[in-house]
């Protein structure tokens, strides 16, 4: 067990190094990053000054080592637009994004698991077909469009919910529902198919043959095993949520990292972009590590000593 965790930790370290390289190099993709950061009418002298100031005249590997050694200390430089250390901005906005992602995940799981179970137990019923059709529609809807539609109904026509901003529960409802709906659809389908598989296994037949009540068979015996793949997928989908916040935060003017990164891209504030991308990837990697460890804990059958 300990060996497995150590191995996963080592794995995480090189992934982080890889991520830091991508975060560092992507601004060099177009050739000269200084030209990206300055407005088109900047003079040659201004260009040269900024280049010198940001150290772009040094060889690439020197720049990377400097970037990495600062990044370890959480120093990603100063925002070109706000003129404060970018980490301050990131830390200020992070809670809003996390709040949104967690709310969406909770919304998705709380509804999807019961829907999936009921659909599996009443397989082929109207209820099952209806909810699976609904799930398919949910999967086919772009989440930002769903957000706009909710806004059209609940803000413009009914006037029940605010269109933008953060603060109260009322502000959180529409962004979280739009972000979470396609996840909910996916989880409901997954729960249903896993439940169907588990319900056909021998030990369930044994439990039923013992004369246990159906509710107990489902909640005590079947659900426990069906939850394992759900936990894994839910963990992996956290990355989707992080990507999704970028658009949803823009739609609802939610003051999180996603909206900040888009603003930073348009104002050519590349140190800020670098820091946000790096921090969000770290979150994602951390989440994956957590899921892997939890997975072993949940399912002792998995041999964690050998690679698959």
């Amino acid at each position, binding site marked *: 067990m300990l060996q497995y965790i150590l191995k996963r930790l080592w794995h995480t370290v090189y992934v982080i190094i890889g991520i830091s390289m*991508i975060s560092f190099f992507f601004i060099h993709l177009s050739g000269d990053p200084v030209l990206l950061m300055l407005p088109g009418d900047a003079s040659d002298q201004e260009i040269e000054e900024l280049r010198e100031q940001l150290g772009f005249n040094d060889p690439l590997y020197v720049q990377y080592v400097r970037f990495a050694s600062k990044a370890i200390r959480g120093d990603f430089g100063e925002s070109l637009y706000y003129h404060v250390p970018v980490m301050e901005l990131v830390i200020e906005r992070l809670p809003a994004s996390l709040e949104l992602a967690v709310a969406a995940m909770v919304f998705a799981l709380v509804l999807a698991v019961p829907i999936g179970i009921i659909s599996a137990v009443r397989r082929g019923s109207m209820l099952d077909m209806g909810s699976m059709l609904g799930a398919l529609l949910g*999967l086919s809807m*772009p989440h930002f*469009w769903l957000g706009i539609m909710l806004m059209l109904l609940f803000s413009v026509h009914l006037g029940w919910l605010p269109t933008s901003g953060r603060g109260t529960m009322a502000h959180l409802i529409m962004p979280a529902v739009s972000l979470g709906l396609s996840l909910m659809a996916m989880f409901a*389908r997954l729960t249903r198919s896993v439940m169907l598989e588990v319900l056909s296994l021998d030990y369930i037949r044994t439990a039923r043959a013992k004369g246990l009540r159906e509710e107990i068979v489902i909640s005590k015996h079947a659900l426990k095993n069906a939850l394992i793949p759900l936990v894994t997928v839910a963990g992996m989908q956290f*990355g989707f949520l992080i990507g999704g916040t970028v658009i949803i935060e823009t739609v609802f003017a939610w003051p999180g990292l996603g909206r900040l990164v888009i603003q930073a891209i*348009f104002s050519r504030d590349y140190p800020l972009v670098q820091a946000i*991308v790096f921090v969000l*990837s770290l979150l994602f990697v951390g989440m994956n590590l957590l899921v892997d460890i939890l997975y072993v804990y949940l399912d002792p059958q998995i041999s964690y000593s050998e690679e698959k």
Partner: protein
Amino acid sequence: MNTRATESPGFRQAVESLVPRIRLTLETAREVVRRPSALAGGILLLLILMASVSFPVLYHTDPLAQDLLARFTPPVWQSGGTWSHLLGTDNLGRDVLSRLLYGSRVSLLVGFTAVFVAELVGIVLGLISGYYGGKTDSFIMRIADIFMAYPFMLLTISVIAVLGPSILNLILVLGISDWVTYARTIRGSVLSLKRKEFVEASRAIGTHNIIIIIRHILPNVISPLLVLGTLRVANIIIWESGLSYLGMGAPPPMPTWGRMLAEGRVYIGDAWWLVTLPGLAIMFTILSINLLGDGLRDALDPRLINV
């Protein structure tokens, strides 16, 4: 090494061995057609494709032509609507229907070609990784891990932000960031296949590695990729419209579904059709692809979990 491989009789045999595969494909198609939901998805997708290809002939209204006097004309069934603009006009008086049809071209083009790029990269790397194993394998898989750890949306956004928005960049970026799933799937199947007797027998009689891969391995691992690819087209189209919503899709003034939504969002209180119709177009396209993909999966491999 490559040229010698293509000249050898073994290579010709390998190509000939694809013929029964084609017959198998027809059988699969028959299987798919037998499922009502998959058939419905297929027909819907076909209709969308046909509309997208043929619209300049059937409905020749310029999607870019502005008519400021006819701004915010509602769709024809609503009071104030006219037959000359079936689905109404936007804030600049541009025809919504022709913009929707034009947008379908962008989405479908980007969706299918990006998946093609991703499959190509994924298949090649997955085959190499699984077949050769060892250091090559661990190198490719380490890179895959890093790609997996990078939130897909952020990767594409940051690269597009630097490279600038264009259709080609979109296809390349979306394609290249999405190869990992294919590579992993293929690698897994190759690992189990290469220990099978028929592969070992082939190697024992001295068949070239490339021919073994093309003739014995590839045909046996391709069908899960077909399913995966179809379902990924749907995801890519959603991402493309999202990028386009953020102003990082196809460059303006090209009409795309995402851009139409972003522009319509400003007038959400005045013109419901501007924010509703492009989304419906995306939804029906994705729905048709998902239905077809589900059908393909059931037809090719009933054991695959229904996620």
